[in-house]
């Protein structure tokens, strides 16, 4: 009990330190999502804490993702006018994005000869963690591995998104936001906000829609990939 409590405190402290480092350095590769886990893992190993003991405390924080997902109703509500106005463009591009995300993860994983449980854990990697973990469990993947793939996806998208926008001459603000939100969930959305508020709004919307669409398409596409 005491260890679990200590683990929660340690997690919060390392997160605060990581955020501070990120703010001071302004180097996007030093995202809190890399620094905090590295700090925390070193502490856990040095103090000789067992991972299962850590997880008893850590789970409390992971659980907070549930009200956070409910909280997405607020940006969705605020941007409902944008959603309505561009509904066709958004639905078509997001559906193709969600299908391509599932299929391409599966196809590339096949090509590099990954085992099925790793492959299944990779499929939902482009949506926000809480939902990705749920989808992973539903289709037979390993949710904690999926969480790690989601984080790596976020870091990839942060670096590659702006390069792709430039290389393929994406000029529409809506398209920039949708691409970042679909490809790299919350991390992409934070990048989109750097482009501008309109891009940011589109990306938040894309993040929510990506989650919902992947939830719908995952059970349909997974059996096709496993054929």
């Amino acid at each position, binding site marked *: 009990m005491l260890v679990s409590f200590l683990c929660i405190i340690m997690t919060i402290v390392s997160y605060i330190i990581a955020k501070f480092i990120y703010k001071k350095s302004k180097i996007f590769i030093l*995202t*809190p*999502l890399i620094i*905090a*886990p590295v700090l*925390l*893992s070193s502490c856990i*190993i040095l103090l000789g804490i067992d*991972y299962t003991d*850590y997880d008893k*405390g850590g*789970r409390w*924080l992971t659980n*907070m*993702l*549930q*009200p956070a*997902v*409910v*909280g997405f*109703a*607020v940006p*969705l*509500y605020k941007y409902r006018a944008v959603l309505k106005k561009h509904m*066709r*463009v958004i639905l078509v*591009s997001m559906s193709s*994005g969600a299908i*391509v995300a599932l299929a*391409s993860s599966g196809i*590339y*994983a096949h090509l*590099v000869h*990954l085992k099925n449980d790793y492959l299944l854990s990779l499929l939902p*990697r*482009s949506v926000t963690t809480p*939902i990705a973990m749920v989808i992973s469990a*539903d289709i037979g993947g390993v949710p*904690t*591995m999926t*969480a*790690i793939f989601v*984080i*790596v*996806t976020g870091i*990839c*998208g942060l670096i*590659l998104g702006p390069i*792709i*926008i430039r290389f*393929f001459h994406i*000029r*529409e603000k809506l*398209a920039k936001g949708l*691409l970042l939100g679909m*490809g790299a969930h*919350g991390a992409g959305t934070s990048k989109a906000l750097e482009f501008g508020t309109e891009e940011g709004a589109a990306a938040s919307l*894309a993040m929510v829609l990506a989650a*919902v669409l992947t939830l719908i398409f995952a*059970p349909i596409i997974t059996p096709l990939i496993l054929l």
Partner: protein
Amino acid sequence: MIKVFKILIQVAVLYFFAIIGNLLSSILHLPISGSIIGMFIMFAMLYFKILPVSKIEMGASFLLSEMLLFFVPSAVGILQYKEAVFNYGTQFLLVICLSTITVMIVTGIVAERFSRQKERYR
């Protein structure tokens, strides 16, 4: 201090919706996670003005802005998979990078083409 208290209450309200969503999901055997159902219920409440957005806005934006914190314990979970990362790390990275590039190109180009077409026909 009042602000902290407000955020805590609003987070509790959001959690309550997640719990309702979880209950519905398990009672009705829905394939969707409870928190997503909770999100849709919350959206409906806001849309039909049953709940004013001001009542949950602070809590929601707090959770969304500190969302990375809630990912940290899962990222530490990598400790359990040291062997997998050691053996397959390159493959994982390759799949994730290539797939992210593919997704972004497809989404971006489809959205760009479609919104340009729409402009032309107007």
